[in-house]
């Protein structure tokens, strides 16, 4: 065992550069147990709630569905199914606003609940160790499980990568202020999370899992400490409170001292990471056959009367969720999906809760004052001090404003994890992350345009080549035809036929004779003239 591995085994916690300590404000929502939410009237289910392609539709308008019934099936290209969150009728399938910063519309299935909440029959699994790895992955995929931490990467796909693994990391850090969904889940369902972790270990073919929790969640830590004696494969790691410790790359650095290579994956350094919520969902899917139709959502902020955590069916409109929690909007209210650091604002509250929705935050303007006017950068470097990726945010900002894409590449724009620490500390209130997102989008656009141009160029060149080839072929054909003609003629002459050449020669001779005659006549005339 190498020294580094020994240190990991011994529970050494490394550190990562930068980071910030924003006010945590978790006590607002973490005081009460996770409560169920009464059924809503309508549910909106976007086909695509994960990273990858949407699944393929299995239902049509007018169909009756039961809770847990698959509405789409795994399509091409990482597709994941979505399931009916409750029983009811499909009343529409069409474009609807989805939970995305752009506020763009995408295909959404609308289910009008019948209020009976009938579920399909579940197929629990007695002993998952008797099932093949491929079948388990299929089960997880069929349950529609995507990473519940925020990025929504299809879980089965992550686990399907076959490379030697040192550790499975279960991420229960939840470092973003305000959010306590994972915290409450860990406190109340530690055993299920452990079961899910065991299943994930089994599938990944990995020996050991590290469960990471931030030090500000003593109850969650205690919940696991009490249970881990029976699970020698699992080890608890308490990480110090600092944002963004829960970022995948930062947590890997904290627990193992390793760095995921730029544009690489954790699996490149022998690690795979899953969120605690994902582990919970995997346990439910494998052990009980439950597809992913609900998740814990933190509803918090001073403008809601009953902040807390709720079991929310996917597809529940945010408006309904907030209404149930006593939402009192103020003028210019911001409704944030996600936390105050990385969440995005919603323009329209008909947007539904989806697989990646961990928090709905409705702050008062006192607790999270709206951004002020952007002032000039004074190069103070505070942003660089807090950047966990060791980038130079202010250089990136200058370069982004100047649209210097080569410079941005040199400064590793794409290694920015958009954690927002730089913008948080900026005394000039420059929306730094916003500039990076824009620049990234522009760079991607340019790459796309370039790719398109490349395809067009190739097509053009191929056409030119074809035309040239056709021309050559045509010339060759003509040449061959001419040769054949000549040959046929020669053959005809040899066989005693008329030689067309003779006719030509005769014609030339005739023409010459005529010219000579004309010349002689002219001479004759000139002579007569002289005589006269």
């Amino acid at each position, binding site marked *: 065992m190498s020294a580094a591995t020994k240190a990991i085994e011994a529970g050494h916690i490394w550190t990562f550069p930068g980071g910030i300590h924003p006010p945590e404000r978790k006590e607002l929502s973490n005081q009460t147990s996770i409560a169920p939410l009464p059924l809503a009237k309508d549910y909106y289910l976007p086909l695509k709630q994960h990273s990858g392609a949407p699944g393929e539709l299995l239902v049509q308008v007018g169909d009756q569905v039961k809770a847990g019934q698959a509405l789409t099936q795994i399509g091409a290209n990482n597709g994941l199914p979505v399931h009916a969150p409750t029983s009811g009728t499909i009343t529409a399938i069409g474009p609807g606003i989805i939970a995305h910063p752009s506020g763009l519309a995408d295909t959404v299935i609308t289910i009008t609940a019948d209020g009976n909440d009938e579920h399909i029959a579940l197929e629990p699994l007695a002993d998952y160790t008797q099932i093949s790895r491929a079948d388990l992955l299929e089960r997880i995929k069929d349950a529609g499980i995507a990473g519940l931490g925020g990025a929504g990467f299809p879980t089965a796909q992550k686990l399907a990568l076959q490379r030697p693994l040192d550790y499975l990391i279960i991420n229960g850090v939840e470092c973003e202020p305000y959010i306590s969904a994972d915290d409450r889940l860990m406190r109340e369902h530690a055993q299920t999370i452990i079961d899910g972790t065991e299943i994930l270990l089994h599938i990944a073919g990995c020996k050991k899992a590290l469960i990471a929790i931030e030090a500000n969640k003593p109850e969650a830590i205690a919940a696991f400490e009490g249970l881990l004696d029976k699970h020698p494969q699992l080890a608890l790691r308490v990480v110090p409170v600092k944002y963004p410790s829960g970022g995948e790359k930062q947590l890997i650095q904290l627990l193992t001292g390793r760095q995921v290579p730029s544009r690489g994956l954790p699996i490149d350094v022998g690690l795979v990471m899953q969120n605690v919520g994902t582990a919970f969902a995997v346990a439910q899917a494998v052990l009980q056959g439950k597809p992913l139709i609900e998740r814990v959502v933190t509803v918090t902020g001073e403008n809601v009367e009953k902040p807390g955590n709720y079991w929310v069916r996917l597809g529940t409109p945010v408006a309904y969720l907030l209404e149930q929690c006593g939402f009192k909007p103020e003028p210019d209210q911001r409704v944030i999906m996600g936390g105050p650091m*990385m969440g995005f604002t919603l323009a329209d509250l008909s947007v539904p809760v989806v697989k990646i929705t961990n928090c709905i935050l409705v702050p008062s303007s006192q607790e999270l004052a709206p951004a002020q006017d952007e002032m000039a950068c004074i190069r103070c470097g505070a942003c660089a001090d807090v950047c966990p990726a060791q980038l130079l945010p202010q250089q990136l900002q200058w370069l982004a404003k100047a649209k210097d894409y080569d410079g941005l590449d040199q400064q590793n724009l794409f290694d920015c994890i958009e954690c927002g620490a730089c913008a948080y500390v900026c*005394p000039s209130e420059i929306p730094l992350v916003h500039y990076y997102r824009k620049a990234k989008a522009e760079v991607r656009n340019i790459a796309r345009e370039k790719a398109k141009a490349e395809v067009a160029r190739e097509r053009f060149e191929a056409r030119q080549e074809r035309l040239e080839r056709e021309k050559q072929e045509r010339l060759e054909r003509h040449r061959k035809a001419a040769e054949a003609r000549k040959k046929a003629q020669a053959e005809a002459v040899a066989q005693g036929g008329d030689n067309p050449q003779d006719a030509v020669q005769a014609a030339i001779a005739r023409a010459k004779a005529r010219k000579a005659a004309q010349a002689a006549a002219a001479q004759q005339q000139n002579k007569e003239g002289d005589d006269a």
Partner: protein
Amino acid sequence: MTFKIAASPHAHQRRTTQQVMRWVYLALIPGVLVQTYFFGFGVYVQLALALLTAWVAEGLAMRLRGRPVAHAWQDHTAIVTAVLLAISIPALAPWWIIVMGTAFAIIVVKHVYGGVGQNLFNPAMAGYVLLLISFPVQMTSWPIPNELAQLQVSISDTVSLIFSGFTQAGYNLEQLRMGADGITMATPLDSLRNDLNHQLTLGEALSKPIFDDFAGIGWAWVNIAFLLGGLVLIKQKIISWHIPGGMLVGLLVPAAIYWLFNPDQAITPMLHALSGATMLGAFFIATDPVTAATSNKGRWVFGLLVGFLVFVIRTWGGYPDAVAFAVLLANMTVPVIDKYTQPIAYGHGGRS
């Protein structure tokens, strides 16, 4: 009902540029008080003139540039420039010195380059250097520390001196600067440098009354007061320790080595540390974020360079103190320092 759209992060640490600047000039207060104690009320007159000039110059420049004037007044950067320049010049210098220096610093050094955050050079130090090379006499005529002075200068005399060049009794600055021995009083670094150049030993040079205190009367205490303010800034995370640390190491290590090899002909490290503008430079001037390097490694290199340049100029250069020149020279190298001290980004082969 539609709701407000905003870009993440939605939380901000509310420490604005204005607050940062306010901390800087508040941290200068101990130094200013000590300076006043030793060199008289002229410091306040210079401060008042500098602030007024800065306010007018900032407004004028913003107006000419067609920018919102209030914006510039709000960020308090001009105040810091004005204060730094006012306490860098001799307390009894004629009024037009500080007015010219401040106006140049704000209008030319700052706004011609594009205003806050865009200037290549530290405005206060560029203003200082303009004055030093244009008006060397006025700029090196420091008043005698009060305890050595033959004549005490009253407030009305101070004002009269600054505006007319004479006290109400008719003395000019030169007459006031005569010591008990009838020789014009120089600052400790100035005096030491002249004496060492005239082949006196360090011991002989230090026998002058101005060195009665441990590092020059007045000057040592002024430096300690600035050091104190600087430590407050580090504690408040307004500045990082890298630049002041680098500058002191860059100055004191070579100075100590040189002095050990040359004990009779070199300025002692203590005098280097506590005389002239050392502490003011280390904590308040070289740390100007706009014109210094930005990464911690870069700041360290920048600080070392400033310190080393101060040592070189004080030891072999043509000027007794060198902080302004050192800072400006180091400002020029910032792009290069920044380029070569770029931290290795996560995932690019660095170690944690």
